[in-house]
């Protein structure tokens, strides 16, 4: 039985037994290279749920801070390994009620980067198939068919993933994926090195160029499963005014730093912000750097242990920072 069948079965059962009011999974989007979130209320409709390496969306976004509509609804949802870390981060701070959740964990062996794929072809992609594990077959409007290795087109975050299996779930869709030995395989931040080795002036020039394009659409903030102040967001506040409506790289970068600092210790670098950005700002790199430093300072990986508190909510007398 495929993982997809497992998801459908779990969803149908939970809906039939009334354990959940609705179930959130993924379905095929209008565009062949996209899987989109699906909200299923009727057990007869579970057939629309899919599981493919295109299911990039982090569905925890829909339940952040007890926000499911209607209030108090019991919700079922699917989580991948990285998504489960955001869920654990929310549970650590008691921002979601686990009694009202039914979580189906989906072990994941990598998600395809839709944008990378689309950029590889000049013509529109009309079909993407996954004939076997690790293979992607793309057909374009021009009639071209090409077989690719999934490893070559997967998301950057998947290449360095150490948590392919969900860390918190009520049921698991199919057998677990093989995990790296986390004692041996430490987090990999080599993608940051190129930037880190730049001189200060070059860093500033690069940031200026990158952040000039930000249109402050709030997609990164809205899609972030662990950024949840909504209308109380200081980015939207005019009194006090931290970020003004002025359009310039400085303001845009400050806007991003607000997001970054507010999710520090909670963000597991699921890279949802990176994927949501319409102007393709590499936001994930900022968060990756933050996580690198947090790991360096505390040896802490956000969202990995249910009984842990995020590092910035607690302190230790034995910390020795500063002088």
């Amino acid at each position, binding site marked *: 039985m495929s993982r997809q069948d497992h998801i459908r079965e779990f969803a149908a059962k939970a809906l039939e037994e009334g354990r959940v009011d609705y179930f959130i999974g993924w379905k095929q989007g209008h565009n062949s290279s996209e899987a989109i979130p699906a909200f299923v209320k009727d057990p007869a409709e579970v057939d629309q749920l899919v599981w493919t390496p295109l299911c990039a969306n982090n569905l925890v976004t829909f339940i952040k801070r007890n926000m499911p509509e209607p209030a108090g609804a019991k919700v079922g949802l699917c989580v991948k390994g990285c998504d489960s870390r955001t869920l654990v981060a929310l549970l650590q701070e008691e921002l979601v009620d686990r009694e009202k959740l039914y979580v189906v964990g989906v072990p994941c062996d990598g998600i395809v980067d839709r944008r990378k794929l689309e950029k590889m072809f000049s013509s529109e992609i009309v079909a993407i198939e996954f004939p076997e594990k690790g293979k992607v077959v793309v057909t374009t409007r021009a009639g071209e068919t090409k077989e690719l290795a999934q490893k070559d087109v997967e998301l950057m975050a998947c290449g360095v993933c150490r948590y392919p299996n969900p860390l918190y779930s009520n049921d698991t869709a199919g057998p677990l994926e093989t995990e790296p030995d986390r004692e041996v395989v430490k987090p990999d931040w080599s993608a940051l090195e190129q930037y880190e080795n730049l001189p200060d002036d070059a860093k500033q020039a690069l*940031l200026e160029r990158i952040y000039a394009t930000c249109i402050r659409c709030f997609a990164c903030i809205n899609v972030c499963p662990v950024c949840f102040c909504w209308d109380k967001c200081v980015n939207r506040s005019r009194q006090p005014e931290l970020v003004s409506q002025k359009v310039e790289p400085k303001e845009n970068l*400050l806007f991003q730093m607000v997001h970054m600092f507010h999710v520090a210790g909670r963000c597991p670098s699921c890279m949802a912000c990176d994927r949501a950005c319409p102007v393709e700002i590499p936001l994930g790199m900022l968060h990756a*750097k*933050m996580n690198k430093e947090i790991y360096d300072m505390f040896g802490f990986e956000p969202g990995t242990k249910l009984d842990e508190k995020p590092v910035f909510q607690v*302190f230790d007398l034995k910390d020795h*920072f500063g002088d």
Partner: protein
Amino acid sequence: MADTTTTTQASGAAQGAAPGSTGAPAVGKPADRPVKVIGIVCNWCSYAGADTAGVGRFRQPANLRLIRVPCTGRIDPLFALKAFQAGADGVLISGCHPGDCHYSEGNYYARRKFELLERMIHHLGIPEERFKWTWVSASEGQRWQKVVTEFVAGVEKLGPREGRAL
């Protein structure tokens, strides 16, 4: 009435800008001006420490503008970033020594945040001489003088900042 107020303000602004300046502050080119350093200090220790330094007549650089907050735990890392964004040449954060917080534990939380802030500030390409966080108690007027003098000297060495991003 409204007209008068506007006129007064406008002429006031013009007069204020007149001596020794060419009008609008220079943007994008090296400004020949004294550096501006923002100090964010806690009410109970570092602000009082600065006061002690003042009462003791210790000579200090005049480039520092102090912002007094109740506790270092109140200091949002974004305060420092906002200061840089708004054109500060350096930011100095100071509070009570660990163990001496007026609110018992504010600075224990704060030091975790400041450490991350410091590392992220360097990641953004702001040289480390432009940001410092430290502890100065109310009785340490001498130490306050030393911290401020050294920090401002470091910032002055780099000169006024022309931040391109933040």
